[in-house]
């Protein structure tokens, strides 16, 4: 199964996503802010990254930009999961090269299915 890195400052999100995704057989790595996420993305080389936008120290947009600039991490698919619904934010996310922009509240079962479908399509 896949390796997934979750970057979010909210522990509740980590707990819930980890529980559902681990149950589906995925290996989860976690980071609670952008700089830590960047280090873990390079070291862990996940098959997919779940990324929040509003985080302390570095926003999700900056994290995505840095990931896409780094040759070691630019191939990692990014799913942004955020409560920011404005069109400009969605466009900005896709402009940075992310794969999916998921707005909260999200159905965690559907999220799991979307992730699995995406990972299957890349095989």
């Amino acid at each position: 199964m896949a390796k997934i890195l979750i970057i979010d400052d909210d522990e509740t999100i980590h707990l819930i996503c980890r529980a559902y995704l681990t149950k589906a057989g995925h290996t989860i790595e976690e980071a609670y802010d952008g700089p830590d996420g960047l280090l873990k993305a390079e070291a862990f080389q996940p098959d997919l990254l779940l990324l929040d936008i509003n985080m302390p120290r570095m926003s999700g947009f900056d994290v995505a930009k840095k990931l896409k600039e780094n040759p070691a991490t630019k191939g990692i698919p990014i799913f942004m999961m955020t409560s920011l619904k404005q069109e400009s934010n969605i466009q900005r996310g896709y402009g940075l090269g992310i794969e999916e922009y998921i707005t909260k509240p999200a159905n965690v079962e559907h999220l799991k299915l979307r992730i699995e479908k995406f990972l299957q399509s890349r095989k």
Partner: protein
Amino acid sequence: MLDIFTQSPHFYDYVTAAVLLLGVFNVAEVLFLLWNKARVESSELKRQGLKRLASTALITATDPAALLPRPAKEEEFAAYSEAIASVLDSFEGEIAVKAAQLISDLGIDDHYRRLARHRVWYKRGNAIDILSSFKLKSNREFFLAVFRSETSLDVRYRIIYGLSRLAREHADIRALARMLSGLPYLTAKYTEDIFYNIITALKATGSEAEFGIFMREIMNDKTVLNLVKRDCITACYAAACEKGRGLLKEYYAAFPDEPEILIAAVKALARMGDFSVTPAAIRHPDWRVRLAALKYAHLCCMDMLPEIRALLRDPSYHVRLNAALALAKGGEKGLAALRQEAAGPDAFAASTAAYALSQEAA
């Protein structure tokens, strides 16, 4: 006075006592700080632990309330509330239903409803904020009742915010608008957030059109501040209210002398990819409207190149600068015009054009 001390046979005893007292005070202060640090850290750890426990119970148990210790202290209520609000904000489906059920099962809503009647205003405000974060429809009547008896303006604003997250139908929007107009205008951000919440809540129930009806109603209502109408337009953009596009054009046409509304309409429409009012806004007599429109001129209006070029001589510095930047972003024709202006006799236009060219090169 000092002599009495210095010449006293007990002078050194006084000094020693003072130094000892200072020492004792310092040691006590350090001990207090260490104790307080340990207390805060322990309380934070406990809060994190309870949050984790609540989230885990929501994931694993069919009846999470049976697994969780019933909250008794304020920090326990706060920890559960944070975990539940976070789940409700981020997730929908079964887990959100369980989280909402947990609020009443653990008596959290009752606790904060009691606090919302507390004699200290900030405790009431905090309780209202927490109840708002749950977005429970059952709180609607409670919020309305509290609003009627509440004396603190600060808490009343918070109640309106809470109610805005529960809007379901046209009557709710009208009621909120009435409540808002009964209070002093707070800030643009606050009013925009209220309308943003309303649109989001209506969208969730498929009743987005209700907001359009409301905006049409208030368009010519003199009792509604134009600032509030402007904030409605801004919220319409922020909440991606695409269906309101036609209405925004009507607002632009209906308020030719209200720059605040015109600017909001130009920006909202442009961000939806609709530039139909931008050319008219570029020609508007108010410099603030021209300025707002020029930000998007390179995306829609390069056929107006002579007019944009003429704005390099506009009385407003901001308009001159943004006209130059629009030309710089507007392709080869725009750049050629800027190069001519940079070498021209008009010192104002030449310096602005040179600046825009340097920015484009950078």
